[in-house]
């Protein structure tokens, strides 16, 4: 008895149209939500075509399957998972091959599944709990016969074999999934050292993430810690309207280690992350428990902050260190509705971008055309930077030595942010450069 996946009909249409298009093998992501009983797939997205930057090895013609670059697929999965609200995750992959490659397809899928999972969990600040489903779904479709084979792999166990799973289509699965929202105040001060600023950042964010994870969650004013059902008193109406649930999170700042004195560390500076983030999570309607809903929204809180910090640091590194001012605005979160479902996906808009840029990215990453008007940019307020704000912020360190703009760096070229994503793979592989770049920024002697 394997897992059972209930899939949106729109996904079937998408996969069919992909299979029909001529070409070699195609990979893509399957996105949805897992629960103990049932699993739901709400979206399928093909892996974007990679513009060969001369990086692919075309000397050996090994075959179309080998052409599939696992790093590329994984990187796409990582960036797509940043665009998903809480509760919605990359559940697996699909692979469309011509009939002659069907045999090797399973192996390829297994390798891809593990690569994707590794990539996505790399920068995760929270730990998986016992409740979390570690099975990932693979769907192999033969381009000629349109036959689909669905199997799952347990990513906890690299030696596992594929287990069969059910795959069935249904309409309007997620149209009435309740949405949980909240706005969270963030005020973190993280000391960093020159040599390991990235590690310090991750450690500092990790401490904050643990506080959020351990926090008490109230959903519409009720505590969400026990095993009670989220949607009580729901009648058996299939056309329920989508409920919006307001979430509150309360934390304590306990330190498990008992000490007699303060923990003091020498640092070469500090990073201060401040502001408010809007968080959102969706939960399925199949008797969901309050604690799963609480877990989904808390993870979204942690993800949205850590993703944005990551994106800013990636952006700075891309633009060769970027402008050396002290205050950077982190990108703001915008939402767009996923057609045919009750869900929204999100994206992050840098201060110099517009809704058009977001729409372009949505097309690139999620393979669908969205109208600019549909993109909701009102959820988070835009940055308004003025000199007085800067001074108020820096009130802590009077007369402190400031970051001196490093004259040797050229003014960064305003590249199209979309090109960032193509080089995403390079970023993933060259994390070491980040440390160098930020340490240069702290050069202040």
């Amino acid at each position, binding site marked *: 008895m394997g897992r059972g996946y209930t899939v949106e009909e729109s996904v079937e249409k998408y996969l069919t149209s992909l299979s029909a298009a001529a070409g070699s093998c195609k990979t893509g992501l399957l996105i949805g939500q897992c629960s103990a009983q049932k699993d739901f797939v709400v979206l399928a997205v093909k892996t974007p075509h990679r513009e060969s930057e001369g990086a692919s090895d075309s000397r050996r013609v090994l075959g179309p399957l080998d052409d599939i670059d696992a790093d590329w697929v994984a990187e796409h999965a990582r960036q797509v998972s940043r665009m998903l609200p809480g509760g919605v995750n990359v559940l697996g992959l699909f692979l469309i091959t011509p009939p002659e490659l069907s045999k090797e397809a399973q192996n390829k899928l297994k390798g891809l599944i593990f690569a994707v999972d590794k990539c996505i969990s790399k920068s995760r600040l929270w730990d998986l709990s016992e409740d979390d489903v570690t099975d990932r779904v693979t769907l192999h479709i033969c381009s000629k016969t349109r036959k689909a084979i669905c199997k799952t792999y347990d990513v906890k166990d690299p030696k596992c074999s594929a287990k069969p799973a059910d795959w069935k289509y249904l309409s309007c699965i997620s149209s009435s999934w309740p949405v949980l929202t909240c*706005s969270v105040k963030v005020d973190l001060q993280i000391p960093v050292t020159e040599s390991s600023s990235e590690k310090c950042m991750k450690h500092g964010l990790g401490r904050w993430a643990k506080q959020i994870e351990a926090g008490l969650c109230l959903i519409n004013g009720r505590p969400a810690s026990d095993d009670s059902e989220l949607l009580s008193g729901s009648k058996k109406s299939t056309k329920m309207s989508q409920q919006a649930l307001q979430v509150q999170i*309360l934390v304590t700042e306990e330190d498990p280690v008992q000490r*007699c004195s303060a923990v003091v560390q020498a640092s070469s500076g500090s990073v201060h992350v401040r*502001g408010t983030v809007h968080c959102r999570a969706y939960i399925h309607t199949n008797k969901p428990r309050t604690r799963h809903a609480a877990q989904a929204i808390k993870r979204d809180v942690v993800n949205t902050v850590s993703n944005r910090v990551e994106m800013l640091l990636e952006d700075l590194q891309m633009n060769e260190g970027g402008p050396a001012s002290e205050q950077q605005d*982190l990108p703001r979160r915008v939402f767009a509705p996923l057609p045919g479902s009750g869900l929204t996906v999100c994206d992050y808009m840098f201060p110099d971008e517009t809704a058009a840029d977001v729409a372009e990215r949505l097309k690139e990453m999620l393979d669908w055309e969205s109208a600019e008007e549909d993109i909701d940019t009102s959820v*988070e307020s835009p940055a308004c930077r003025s000199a007085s704000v800067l001074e108020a912020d820096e009130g802590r360190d009077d007369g402190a030595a400031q970051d001196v703009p490093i004259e040797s760096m050229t003014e960064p070229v305003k590249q199209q942010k979309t090109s960032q994503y193509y080089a995403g793979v390079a970023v993933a592989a060259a994390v070491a450069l980040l440390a160098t770049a930020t340490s240069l920024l702290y050069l202040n002697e």
Partner: protein
Amino acid sequence: MVLTENGSLIFRLRGVLEFSCQLDSSNETQGQSAICKSFQALRSRVSSESLVFTLCNSSVLLWPNKGLQSTAEHLTEGTPCRDIQQYREAEDGGSKKSKRKDKRDAGPSVVNLKLLWEVTESGESRALSLCRVAKQQHSARMPLCVDCVFSASGQDSLGSVCSGLVGALCGQLSDMEEVVLKYRKGSSLLLPQPFHFQLPESSGLVTVIYPAGVPDSQLLTVREELHGKYGLPSDRPYFRRANAFHFPDEAYKDGYLRNPHTRLTAPNVEEAKVSVVRGVYSYHHYMQDRVDDNGWGCAYRSLQTICSWFQQQGYTDRAVPTHTEIQQALVDVGDKEPRFVGSRQWIGSIEVQAVLNQLLGVTSKILFVSRGSELASKGRELANHFETVGTPIMIGGGVLAHTILGVAWSESSGDIRFLILDPHYTGGEDLQIITEKGWCGWKGPEFWDQNAYYNLCLPQTPKTI
């Protein structure tokens, strides 16, 4: 659970606030102002709307700075504060024994609250930004364990109690700031810890902040100031850490019973004045601590009870000595041969006196009676001891040793009863059995062997704070 009517309540708020600041290692005054700023930031956080109190063992949440918004429908600003007790989920137990105990408890009930922060907010939001400051500095971080109390009478409004607690919290943060600054050495900061003390002739509690890791012996000047401030005599300790108020709802972690005599009813002696030991002692008796001293250890156990008294009244930091340590002390003073250690030999009042002197620096008076019948006439002397000194008395004679905790003596009739704590008890720490079976109880003069001689060791208290 017994609800107090308009009785007094102690609201106790505990929680952890993280303190962090950046210290410039080369600049002293910068460090001071950085610490002050961080505390100021904590105080404003505490006065903000994100402060939340939760009632321990319940799901009740209160927002004290938001017009006392709460998750419990019937709790509002004007509700009498005693009503909050109804929301406490019954703790497991509630057996007959504890109910009986509740009735006898004259003290105030404690309502425990915990401090939380709400990180979610509605209303105006600020864009997320990242600021970097590059500066060689030391980052200091420590968790401040706050512990505030607020006394109220049952009918005081919940709103006033909550604002009282918020005020106490701000006050405590200021006191902690003082202590942190006072004991700072460069970028080394000591953790400030709150202690509550109950002073005589006062129902409220005084909270003092002491720096962690600094022993009581180095805090004498602080205590002298406090004694002066509260008009307390300088001959006995009130503000040592051991003197801290013991909240009635907290169990003692070491498992020994405290003051079992308070469970007893007063003896029926006409026109008798009852004089008993002051403060707190632990009941030490046969077979405890996995030591089988049945038949020989009674004086050792009485001595342990006395040592526990000195430790809990703050006269010493030394833990209650084991049988071996007691024997070693006697060898060290030359009173016994080295092979005494590890033996099962009895000791008497003189040895008790010697050990108290050797280990605790405590002097004792010895009282000798040639016949047990004479003890009945020692009423005045014993009463005087309990009135002025108040320490437990070890009495040894014949083949037995006991502890005398008090006397009930009538000056007119000479009728006398002795409050006896018997170290010969071999059972478990069962208060009901101990009081019902007389292991701690009032005895008449016939309790003593009328023909044997007795030595009493009356420990004296050092005149110190």
